[in-house]
């Protein structure tokens, strides 16, 4: 199995330390969201890919995804229009997933190993370029993976409103308490009481992405409990389980997703 990852930046899925468009360990520096995904995968594999076989992660940096998007623009017929199947203002997400899905399938061929792909996006609704509803964004990511033919082995990771909400659920003074409310906090760091400031306050200081991973290793993360309160995490968790099931992995806790 290979897991193809692409995100927004260092503080979510991670980044390529070698400034390349695509990387694996040791150049791939995982961020807290990769650690979280790895924990869920480990529940199915009974071991951690990050700890034991980190080369199974292939990270696609944003410039590489952008280059794939540019290539698409030149190809006749590879056009994406809104309609009954896709809302307006969601093409960015749809195309991101479409391109990552195609790249994952190419890497699957290249490595002769089955691939799943995780695409992290957490732009909040304040950016008018992507002002659609969360559900519309999710659906456009799903439809993008479907268009690439990666289908349900493409996993959207779309925290509501941003990844700090998921992390704060565990890091706050009363962990795993009232986490549903975090999904309604402002993601825009220009707003008062925004999630980034709240997470910084919970950690006691501003943690780097590597330090956030260390924090998670040290404190652990009860994804089942957090997901029961935060629908966006639940959707990701469920989607990841479905992808792993489609690879033929044994069910989690005896439950087939």
């Amino acid at each position, binding site marked *: 199995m290979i897991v193809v990852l692409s995100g927004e930046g260092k503080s979510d899925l991670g980044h390529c330390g070698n400034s390349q468009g695509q990387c694996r360990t040791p150049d791939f520096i995982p961020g807290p969201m990769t650690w979280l995904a790895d924990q869920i995968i480990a529940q199915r594999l009974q071991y951690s890919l990050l700890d034991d076989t980190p080369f199974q992660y292939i990270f696609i940096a944003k410039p590489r995804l*952008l280059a794939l*998007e540019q290539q698409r*623009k030149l190809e*006749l017929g590879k*056009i*994406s*229009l*809104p309609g009954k199947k896709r809302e*307006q*203002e*969601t*093409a*960015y997400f749809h*195309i*991101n997933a479409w391109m990552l899905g195609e790249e994952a399938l190419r890497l699957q061929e290249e490595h002769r190993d089955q691939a799943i792909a995780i695409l992290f996006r957490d732009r909040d609704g304040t*950016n*008018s*370029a992507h*002002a659609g509803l969360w559900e519309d964004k999710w659906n456009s990511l799903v439809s993008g993976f479907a268009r690439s033919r990666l289908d349900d082995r493409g996993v959207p990771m779309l925290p509501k409103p941003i990844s700090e909400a998921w992390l704060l659920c565990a890091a706050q003074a009363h962990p795993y308490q009232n986490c549903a409310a975090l999904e309604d906090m402002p993601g825009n760091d220009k707003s008062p009481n925004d999630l980034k400031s709240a997470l910084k306050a919970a950690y006691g200081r501003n943690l780097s992405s590597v330090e956030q991973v260390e924090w998670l290793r040290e404190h652990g993360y009860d994804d089942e409990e957090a997901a029961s309160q935060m629908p966006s995490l639940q959707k990701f968790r469920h989607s990841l389980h479905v992808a792993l099931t489609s690879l033929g992995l044994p069910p989690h806790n005896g439950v087939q997703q």
Partner: protein
Amino acid sequence: MIEQVTVKNFKSLADVTIDFGRFNCFVGLNGAGKTTILQVLDFISQQMRGDVGTWLEERGWTADDLRFGDGVGQPVLHTMLEVRFRLKSGDLLCWTGTFDPAHLQLLGEVALLMTEPPQQLLATTAERLTLDDIGLELTFTYEGSVLSQLRGQLLSEPLREFKEALINMRSLYLLAPHLLRRSSRLNGHTDLSAGGDGLPSFLGKIQGSAKDHLEKMLQVFYPRINGFNITTTPDGLQRLAVYEQDSFVTQASHVNDGLLRVLAILAQLEYDNANILVLDEIENGINPEITEKLVDLLVQCPAQIIVTTHSPMILNYVRDEVAKTAVQFVFKDQRGQTSVKPFFSLPATAEKLVHMGPGEAFVDTNLNQLTEAFLQAKKTSAPLLP
């Protein structure tokens, strides 16, 4: 080439300045004022031809219909027009005048060559005309611009070039299939009207190798078409017929809309000295397979092209770097005033263009929300991208 037009008080164009490039594509919601922009360009062109009365009559308008009215305050009577025109020499010519609806005439007409210092080429008052520093009494009546009455030999080279360019602006913004199909009367007008009326007579002028070339160009779009022919009936009507490869002849009354439009556009560009061509809803009747060829033709041809579209297919075949300035968003504020801004000049739309084609970005954008975003940007003077 027209570089900029400023209009005050022409229908919904209460006060708007529009920048133009070689290829220009106006997009926007229904009723935003796209066609009004094409109308004012045609109106400006008509100033150089004179006979503004007939122009109004053909459209079923009176001069009073031109003015902007939002129900607030006293309506302004006159329409102000200003055109900045880049001459072949590289110099800029600035022409301005105020249209008086009572006399259908441009008042206070001034043309300046924007050199350092600016050079006045033309100025009019109610009684006098000054042409290259020579003053003359205005002893004749006219409609539109005084230039409409002056022969080319009287005009300095910059003014002559400007006048001819505007006269040779071809506005096909009313292009309609039923008019394109209509037979022409022999010895009638040989120009194509804004609606496409007169196509057979117009095509009839094109003979010999020029006709062969036009037919070859048509075959690029429609490979099965061998050519066209104009026949004259005993009662003096000229009719268009199209020949296919198997010698099958189709009379214009049965030819598809797209072919007639493409034929009209090709003929205008190639054989009518049309250095400015204006077309409304360019995509009408055009099947997706030839959209790319049409866009390439319009973007690459030496004439200045001004079109409107609602079609993401048309826009998607425009290269990103062209689209950044060529695709212009037309929108109205709460008072009903039309504004025009480059579609991709907001950071949000500019970012979309990085990830998707211009047509995809256009159709992915909620135009009501975009209107709000532009109005907000105007209010807060948020900087637009260069």
